């Protein structure tokens, strides 16, 4: 067994991060509220269009896109505080799928594709990725979808699940096998017949995802991304998604703990504020400690994300820490709200559902631990 402590990331912060933290904290707090989110949940297709427009106008979808493509030219480290604040308010904007799709193009797109699509993303926001399939596997190479080259281009057969925010997306990064080899394509959303999309029922009602049936869909040859970079790009997609999901969950854990602490400070039973009972007090303290540890892991991941090796280790640790922090805080939040906690009106369930959602999309705790075992021991 070899174990290298240097494989563990360190922690630091950039001025831009601080700046974006300030802006994002204020914007997200002022732009939305849980009650607003609850309203949108029931009516919308899982999208806060107004907030989404603002994000686009502020250029947030371009934070980690180079200036040559119209982006801000910063790194994912600066996208982290933004995702954290978005998650803190459960804001219904496709920041993660869009940023992930953009990173995929940056890493695996042809020059022509980058020139065409990256500016579009900066301009319009919405993009997404279509990777997971009905086998439910976390392994992005574990797919059935096929692309066969015909006279008009690549003819697709298969289906994707959990394609986030597809209805509003303009661009979709898609995986399919060519002669048994996994490849990535950029799919122009206009090509998708509405009959091919089905809105899915998710545990997290603040999110939207779709099943996408690909049978018969034909992609132009130009849709194929750089074949030689497939593996690296899939890895980039995986880690980017997990980094930002961790940020959303850390933000969510903060709100969930604040929400519960407020209740413990005001609710009385047996003539005493329930927050004075150690069974509740000490447990919420444990949840808080878990949140702070997760936040440290998150900023370490943001800081060392681009370092070979360290980046993956730090990101998976952050994903584990964030998932545990939010899951535990929200599970206890439901319990500690007593009867009210069992109602739909109590926000605790929103946070618990959010944690389950993120523990599903790009790997759960056990999956990340398997990866870390491979990375740290051998």
């Amino acid at each position, binding site marked *: 067994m070899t174990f290298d402590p240097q494989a563990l990331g360190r922690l630091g912060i950039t001025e831009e991060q601080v700046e974006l933290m300030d802006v994002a904290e204020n914007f997200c707090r002022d732009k939305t509220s849980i009650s607003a989110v609850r309203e949108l949940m029931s009516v919308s297709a899982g999208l806060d269009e107004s907030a989404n427009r603002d994000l686009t106008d502020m250029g947030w979808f371009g934070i980690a896109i180079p200036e040559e493509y119209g982006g801000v030219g910063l790194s994912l480290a600066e996208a982290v505080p933004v995702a954290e604040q978005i998650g803190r308010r459960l804001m219904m904007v496709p920041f993660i799928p869009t940023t992930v799709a953009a990173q995929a193009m940056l890493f695996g797109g042809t020059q022509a594709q980058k020139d065409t699509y990256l500016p579009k993303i900066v301009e319009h926001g919405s993009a997404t990725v279509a990777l997971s399939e009905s086998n439910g596997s976390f392994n992005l190479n574990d797919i059935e979808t096929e692309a066969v080259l015909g006279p008009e281009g690549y003819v697709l057969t298969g289906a994707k699940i959990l394609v986030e925010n597809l209805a509003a997306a303009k661009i979709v990064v898609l995986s399919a096998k060519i002669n048994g080899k996994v490849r990535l394509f950029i799919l122009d959303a206009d090509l998708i017949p509405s009959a091919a999309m089905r809105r899915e029922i998710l545990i997290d*009602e603040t999110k939207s995802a779709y099943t996408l049936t690909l049978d018969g869909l034909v992609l132009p040859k130009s849709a194929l991304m750089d074949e030689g970079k497939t593996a690296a790009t899939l890895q980039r997609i995986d880690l980017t998604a997990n980094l930002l999901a961790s940020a959303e969950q850390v933000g969510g854990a903060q709100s969930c703990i604040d929400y519960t602490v407020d209740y413990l400070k005001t609710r009385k*039973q047996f003539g005493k504020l329930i927050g004075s009972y150690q*069974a509740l007090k000490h447990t919420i303290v444990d949840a808080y400690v878990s949140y702070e540890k997760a936040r440290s892991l998150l900023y370490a991941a943001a800081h060392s994300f681009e370092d070979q090796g360290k980046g993956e280790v730090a990101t998976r640790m952050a994903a584990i820490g964030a998932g545990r922090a939010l899951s535990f805080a929200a599970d206890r939040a*439901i319990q500690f709200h007593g009867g009210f906690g069992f109602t*739909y009106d109590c926000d605790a369930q929103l946070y618990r559902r959010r944690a*389950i959602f993120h523990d599903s999309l790009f790997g759960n705790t056990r999956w990340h631990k398997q990866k870390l075992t491979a990375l740290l021991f051998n």
Partner: protein
Amino acid sequence: MISVEDFAKDAEKWFAENTPRDLDFMLPLTFMEVGTDQQFDFLRDWQRQVYEAGFLGAAWPSEYGGGGLTDAHQSAATKVMRAHNVPIMMNTIGLSWAGPLILDIGSEAHKKKYIRGILSAEDIWCQGFSEPENGSDLGNAQLRAVRDGEDYILNGSKIWTTHGHYGKYMILLARTNPDAPNKYAGLSFILTPMDVPGVRTQKIRKLTGEHGFTQTFFEDARVPVDGLMGAEGMGWKIAMQTLEYERGARGGQAGGFSITEPDPLEILNLARDTGQINDPVVRDDLIDYIIEAQSLNLNGQRAKIGPLIRDNPSGLPLMDKLAKTEFAREINQYALTLQGTKSAYYVDEPNAVDGGWWHRSYLNAFSATIGGGTSQIQRNIIGEHVLGLPKSY
């Protein structure tokens, strides 16, 4: 009287033939999880069938609608019902709370009036103990009952009323004397009709997104005094007695079961179906769940063996709810981690694993770790009543 053996044989035959299978909708595991009219109507009808076949209330007196047999007969039938994993008996408050109480301390008139409807599920019974402001502190119930001639006039509200919007009667804990020496002494226990003016129920949406409980509002509602059980001021004692029926600490229930307990085998099947069973770490976790399930199952067996519980006779009964409900929450939560990306789905999603059953079960599990005394309250009770530790409040 038919022998217990023959009665068990009849039951075996009847449930083998009549237990409904392959429904096209999901049945709730507990009476508290009845979320749709479809589920409700189905279960109500099912209880009636079981009653009419003679396998519910078999030990209750025949003159009131019972089977006139013995507890041994009913236990045999209930055992068969469990073996066939039949749908639950849904009129639980009547079968396990109100019914036994009425048979124990009710008047002849009460028995004639209520028992048959409880068994046939024609009369749905509700429980009215908790109030919005006193979730854990039942003894502090504030719903006011003012005597006025042959009526009580009720004002206040009760919450977590299971089947509230279907309810015909409620066992109500009301405050008849606000000036009593202590909060408990001011309470009375009243069998209350819910179909009188001034009683309004409002559905509560559960964290699962489904309905199930109601809040029940009483505004100058007049109910007959003859619903009073025992005497005024005895409400707390009687309420505690009904809890003993519910916990099985006291006999007299109609039989059957209203809660299907989680079977660890189910999660093993999930782990196998999703292939997660091949992960040694998962197998290691599952072993813990099997051990936990077996411990709880054995606790139940040991609780019946005097010499093995003499050190703490009340220990096993009092920890049963805590241990089982926390285990249910934990195992259902764990099940979500066995579903890969599909654990992002929820009930009614075609792609969902087992139709989202695990997600719903996890969220519903909180009704048991919160309702009927939270797990935190349960630990206080065990600490104080079994270990003799000082009170925490």
